[in-house]
């Protein structure tokens, strides 16, 4: 199975796990709900499955590119950090607690997404000039 398909399946499993986690967590939250937790499953679904499906459709041989691993590693890290931040935000809202460290998740995630974008632009420019 190629890398893109494998990655889509992994994100799909994470999406399912997230839905199950939400259902179980809400059994113990005494009726309290948090939007960031209710819609958390959309993070791996759209940013994971959705993006990699789009890449597979637009550029089927993307995973054979020598830049694929570095870009996908950084991108997956950005999604993972964002996911962790949203999950913690939901947990804190339901529990009524806070932590100043939560902001770092969103800052780091944003920085990593920006890095990925910059790298893609540089690759695009390099390919253009090479051609």
């Amino acid at each position: 199975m190629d890398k893109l398909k494998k990655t889509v399946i992994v994100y799909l499993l994470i999406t399912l796990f997230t839905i199950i986690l939400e259902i179980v967590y809400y059994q113990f939250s005494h009726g309290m709900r948090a939007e960031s937790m209710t819609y958390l499953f959309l993070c791996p679904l759209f940013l994971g499955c959705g993006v990699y499906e789009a890449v597979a459709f637009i550029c089927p041989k993307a995973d054979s590119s020598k830049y694929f691993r570095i870009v996908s590693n950084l991108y997956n890290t950005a999604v993972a950090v964002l996911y962790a931040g949203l999950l913690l935000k939901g947990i804190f809202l339901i529990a009524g607690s806070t932590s100043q460290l939560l902001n770092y998740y969103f800052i780091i995630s944003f920085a990593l997404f920006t890095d990925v974008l910059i790298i893609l632009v540089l690759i695009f420019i390099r390919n253009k000039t090479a051609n």
Partner: protein
Amino acid sequence: MNFFRFFTKRYIYASLVAVFLTVFVVYTLLDAFVIIKVYSGAAITPAPRSSTQANSSVSPQHTEGGDKTSEPIITEYSYQNQNINIQVEKYREHNSNFYVADIKIVSASCLKTAFAKDTFGKHITQTTSKNAWNHRAVFAVNGDYYGFRDDGLIIRNGLLYRDAPRSFPHNEALAITNTGEFKIIKEGEKSGYDFLNEGIVQTFSFGPTLVENGTARDTNNIQENALVPVGDNPRTAIGMIEPLHYIFIVVDGRTGDSVGMSLSELADEFVKWGCITAYNLDGGGSATMYLNKKVLNFPADGQVTGERKISDILYFDGKK
């Protein structure tokens, strides 16, 4: 280029990221729920008042010359002396047991607050009964558990401890003035120092507001403003009939015998008692009412772990 090759190694990168992220998530959880922080630095006092201003008590700990109280009249559900009259009754409605304390005091300085272990900080906790015992309280309820969060306006016993307003729409706080009046204020509307100088001696940052101007807030308003579950739960809330005349309600819940009250039901209860202002405090396992050296209700956590340890209490010790 060798540096960048690290990012292409098959499982090394993923493993390292997983380890770092896990460690940071665990540390964040510990920071939010466990790690104790003592907030050092002096609490801020109000601006000095001129001699022509009303001589209102802002530091209710002691009166000069001593507070000579008469011998109190004590029963299982009441306490009365020359400064205070506390009458507690137990009721059952909405499939719940709840306790209503009708309290009349002679001076606003009779209503006091205390931090757990007399220390302002995060995750510094003590049971309501222990804290009340240490302060020789005759009556106490749990406060707003300020120490579970980093935000909220905290003024206690006339001193400003924290001025970190919560954001709209969850920024309504209860303020108690030096004349014993309850007011609903918006955190961030003014600085904590300005509130202090207006004569506010206590603030509680939890909510939502249940009753204002004699009218219960409607369900939609409560849902919008609540950062807590709105359905049946154990509750602690306080209301004012008029300055120096208060109603404290603690509701048992999360048991087969007593399911708890919704915030709307609680609001209606305060209206029944004639309160013109009422405000919800921390409930759930924190909900505790203490009278005459005994915990009257059955705190929800008590069935498993014992009375919950919390950050702060409101109390009366029978003195001004």
